[in-house]
């Protein structure tokens, strides 16, 4: 038998290996650009912001003195509007997703709705601010309130929830539905007791994305007239409010350099809130995660 190495060897092995390494290098570079910029940003924010953080920062109202300014109204405002936003957009979005996947008859109308929902997800957020201003603030006369702000953000994230929800429902194997029907369950029993629970982890993914987006939105809230300097905490749905990103924006636009640290501290608070909410959603998702 001939030596296998001689038979299986090839003349251009060196060149081929160099080419492999070159592409691997390119891919690593692409990864590095993304990760490095994120890390730089985080390190910068943390270095500026963390020394400024204290319990007082969370319990104090804004001030024209940078070292005394606190994020209390913005933090509370953000939590208020996110709650309203979630309570509105999750049931409506999942309801719409279930309807479109399980009940809507395929046809021109449902295709039209489908295309429009995808388009809505791409509409610039400031447009939603105008919509909120026209509908919630003026037409429904809710004023520039927590309720109006939360509903505006709710509309903004609705397409995200609907799209992710539909994906989740589509991922439930048809055999599960067949099994339920074959036992004599009605459509509603099949959907509510088998399909929706099985799609829950997928719903959570959409909800995580939606909350993260809503928490960081500034433009629609400013458009609909959220406050930028508040010295009170909202105590009800119809109170006026500010939100963390607006407060951060306000601080960064101050001329005094001390406010840069305050803004960075605000960003850290926003990130912590965001990560906490995502962590809760991921915990729920993992708890219900299923494999088939």
């Amino acid at each position, binding site marked *: 038998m001939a030596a296998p190495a001689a038979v299986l060897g090839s003349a251009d092995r060196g060149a081929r290996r160099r080419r492999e390494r070159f592409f691997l290098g390119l891919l690593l570079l692409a990864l590095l650009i993304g990760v490095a910029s994120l890390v730089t940003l985080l390190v910068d924010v943390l270095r500026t912001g963390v020394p400024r953080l204290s319990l007082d920062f969370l319990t104090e109202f804004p001030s024209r003195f940078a070292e005394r300014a606190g994020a209390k109204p913005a933090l509370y405002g953000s939590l208020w509007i996110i709650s309203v936003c979630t309570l509105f957009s999750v049931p409506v979005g999942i309801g719409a997703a279930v309807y479109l996947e399980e009940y809507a008859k395929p046809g021109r109308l449902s295709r039209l709705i489908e295309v429009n929902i995808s388009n809505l997800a791409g509409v610039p957020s400031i447009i939603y601010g105008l919509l909120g201003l026209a509908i919630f603030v003026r037409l429904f006369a809710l004023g520039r309130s927590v309720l109006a702000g939360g509903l505006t953000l709710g509309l903004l994230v609705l397409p995200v929830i609907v799209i992710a929800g539909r994906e989740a429902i589509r991922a439930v*194997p048809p*055999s*599960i*539905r*067949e*099994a*339920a*029907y*074959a*036992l*004599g*369950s*009605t459509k509603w*029993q099949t959907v509510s*007791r*088998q399909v929706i*629970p*099985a799609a829950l982890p997928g719903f959570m993914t959409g909800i995580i994305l939606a909350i993260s987006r809503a928490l960081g939105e500034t433009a629609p809230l400013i458009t609909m007239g959220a406050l930028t300097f508040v010295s009170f905490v909202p105590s009800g749905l119809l109170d006026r409010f500010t939100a963390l990103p607006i407060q951060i924006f306000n601080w960064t636009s101050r001329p005094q350099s001390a406010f840069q640290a305050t803004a960075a501290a605000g960003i850290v608070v926003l990130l912590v809130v965001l990560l906490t909410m995502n962590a809760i959603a991921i915990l729920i998702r993992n708890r219900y995660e*299923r*494999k*088939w």
Partner: protein
Amino acid sequence: MKTPEIHVERRAAEGTPRVNDVVFRAVDVGVRYGETLAVRGITMDIQAHQITAIIGPSGCGKSTLIRCFNRMNDLIPSASIDGQILYRGHDLYDAAVDPVEVRRRIGMVFQKPNPFPKSIFENIAFGLKINGLDDSVDDRVETALKRAALWDEVKKDLKKPALALSGGQQQRLCIARAIAVQPDVILMDEPCSALDPIATARIEDLMRELQSDYTILIVTHNMQQAARVSDMTAFLTVEVDERDGTRTGLLVEYDKTEKLFTNPSDERTEAYITGRFG
């Protein structure tokens, strides 16, 4: 678990008339998907407490046919049915018939085990709950698992996810789930095609066990299985349209299993069972 002897006695005691009960009478049944005729010319009587096998080559519409008997084809928007199927004298496709009620009485076990992604207990309890059998659920779950010969393997941990069971166990769980709601008939669509020979043998034993209480209709591509397990066998073949290539299944022969496998009256049946095609 009851022994087969008791079954024989019981069946004998109840007398022959029950065995001669016609559960299903199919009269010139055909199924269309849109314009395409998938199956045609199915005329057969299915007797109570018998195991009736439907065999035939791939694509002859065996699964399509069996799904007519519990109106599962209703779930496919383009499917429509010609002819008539009577279930104990009632037209199954009458406008007044509720398909949900049909499926409650006519259970089904699928080709691939499809337990719900829940616990073993929940898998059986679901059917009980939706059918209003939610008194003494624990007892009913236990009875169903015993009847499906799964109890001894799972009794220690009913909270275990059903998907953690082996394929054969999952299929027996699906059978337990089907019998828990006390159906009259069980349809089985190639229930062993995803299982190994040992698991297959257990399911076949189980079918014989269940025969005393239920009427069983089984689709199988495995001729030996049909010969081993069934009392009656229907052989379907497939016709290919020369012009457009559409394939239509049709019933060739329906007879006692023994007769069909030893002395078929149609040469197409003979060709199939002797392995000359299919």
